[in-house]
């Protein structure tokens, strides 16, 4: 008879963080206001930073702890403020037109999460602290972020979807390849920052043309 899994404080905390991160991903599908979407992203990033911190403390790994602090600073504070200042306050409308309505979005989001957990269970990964399958939650965020991007016709929402997808990849990196963040973790964030600045430029350009961040009118190029 297999032994019952042992859950201590650290594993239980990791499990709670994983649940919160997954719920934050699903919550994105519920909100229509762009400011709220940015805030949900910030909450999700708190989960990413907290998980990195937990792994760092558990492994007594100073680099991961620094990375956690850095992640919190960039993703929880700098990026949301930057997006907010760059675009959100400059446009007149704040509600995002939806290609797929909220109930259906949520249903698809839950299905995607189920698919992610099912796919991840086939991979022999032992994630640092995360409940098995370790890649279930990060992969869910990747899929939900992708789905969010393609069904929200708004510049800010697409940025938030992309950053959610990136959060999933980030958590996966800390979970199954905790040595990798030394090599690319900082580079990843440093790279992310200018990318967001550029997104801000693009978004501002679009907003400047029609005082809107909607991309519904972007349909000139086809075929």
């Amino acid at each position, binding site marked *: 008879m297999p032994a019952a899994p042992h859950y201590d404080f650290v594993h239980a905390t990791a499990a709670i963080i994983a649940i919160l991160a997954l719920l934050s991903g699903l919550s994105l599908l519920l909100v229509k206001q762009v400011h709220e979407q940015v805030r949900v992203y910030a909450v999700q990033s708190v989960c990413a930073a907290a998980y990195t911190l937990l792994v760092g403390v558990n492994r007594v790994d100073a680099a991961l702890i620094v990375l956690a602090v850095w992640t919190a600073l960039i993703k929880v504070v700098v990026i949301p403020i930057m997006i907010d200042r760059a675009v959100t306050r400059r446009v007149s409308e704040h509600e995002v037109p939806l290609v797929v309505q909220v109930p259906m979005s949520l249903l698809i989001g839950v299905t995607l999460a189920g698919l992610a957990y099912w796919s991840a269970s086939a991979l022999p990964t032992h994630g640092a602290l995360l409940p098995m399958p370790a890649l279930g939650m990060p992969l869910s965020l990747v899929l939900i972020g992708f789905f969010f991007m393609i069904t929200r016709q708004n510049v800010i929402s697409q940025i938030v979807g992309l950053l959610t997808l990136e959060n999933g*990849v980030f958590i996966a990196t800390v979970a199954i390849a905790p040595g990798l963040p030394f090599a690319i973790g900082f580079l990843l964030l440093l790279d992310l920052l200018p990318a967001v600045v550029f997104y801000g430029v693009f978004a501002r350009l679009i907003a400047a043309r029609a005082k809107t961040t909607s991309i519904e009118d972007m349909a000139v*190029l086809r075929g």
Partner: protein
Amino acid sequence: MAIWLVIMLALPLAAAAAGVLLGDRPASGRLSAVAAAASFAAALVAVFADHAVRGRHAFGNTFFLDGLSGVFLIAVAFVYAVVAVYSIGYLRPGIGHIRLRRWYWPLLDVFGFALLATPVVANLGVLWVAVELTTVVSALLVTAEGSDESLEAGWKYIVIGSAGLAIGLFGIVLIYAAGVPSLGVHYTPTYSTLAHAAPHLNGSLVRTGFAFALVGFGTKVGLVPMHAWLPDAHSEGPSPVSAMLSGALLAAALYAVLRIGAITQRAVGPSYVHVLLLVFGGLSLLLAAFFTLRQTNYKRLLAYSSIEHMGIVSLGIGIGGPIAAYGAFFHVIVHAAAKTLAFFGAGDLLSRYETRDADDVRGVIRLAPFTGAMVLLGALAITGVPPFGIFRSELLIVTGGFAQSKYALAGLLVVFVNVAFVGVYQLFHRMVISPGEPTPRDRTRLSRPEQPLMAVAMIASLAVVLVLGVWIPSPLNRLLHAAATVIGGRV
């Protein structure tokens, strides 16, 4: 070798810094062109003069150069050099309509730097960062004309490209995780480390990692069905930028796929990598060939042609065996030269007619004979008409298909390449040869003298694709054999 690689990478950065300081002065362009040409020369020395084909590290584990990286390095360095020269002419008043003039040169140089770095870095993490950098910079260049269409194209490109690269990074993370049991938690994922450890890597993680990497980096390659950004970005960006995207960026992203594919192949055997490349390559060739038949925007047509050619290279590698792989790598180089020629010609055409619609362009050969000749030769070159290099590379891939007893694949390749030929050639023939009745105003604009540097860049591209069609120099031959050995098997 190391010093040449450092020079090659330092020059574009120095030119970018100078460009920021000099702003919109003519010296910015001249400096960039000199830096790009010198980088190309340094790349040639690094690849050919120091036996790099054997596979060597430089500066510890910072750089790695072997046959595979050598082929792609030469292709991107050549494109960067000719694009920089062409751009000087294109940015002259009354020719290209670039609004982002102040930042054009620094962005082009940083783009060149990232493209040159991609094939020479030695580890998967830095490879990803280099490809990501190309996205950020080139997306801004796509919007350089400042039109609504270019803005839409730039937005699609950065969103789809970044999503693809995040997925590509996920693939790299999985491959890293596959090495943790044998290499430990902390290791640097250099190609050689992973290649040596390949027999001990976890097979299912490597397979899944490669699938993610193929989809992720394949988005940047423009493989179907992840290609949605490509026709827009190529058609709406300024023509020299389109040439850089098509000839160099797609190749650099394909390099990332093949580099990860080479590791995967060592870990789980070649058939898995080959099958995935055949599926995505075949889909790309098929869809792009048919889309060429219905285009009236000549720059968009060239964009679909780029998807077709990336499909051909993927098929060449996917067929397996040394002959097809040799042909595929040769195709990377000749496609780079042919597609720059085609986009340069299209840029010249666009600057004269101020339309992308082929229905509004007639009789170019009579009104602007040099432009007409270049446009037509570019169309013939990219469609693989002999004696151009693409004919030779496609013939090699088909021969490789027969050598591997993959007759159906070879046959399909022949069929769809000919479908694409019909699509591309009939449109360019109509524009260049068919008689038209231009207005007096058109006559004045169309008959403006050739811009010398644009002409030089076009002739250089034409010379490369033509010469390589009839003669492959022995150092290049050795390099192509070495590249084929990395992923196609020993020759």
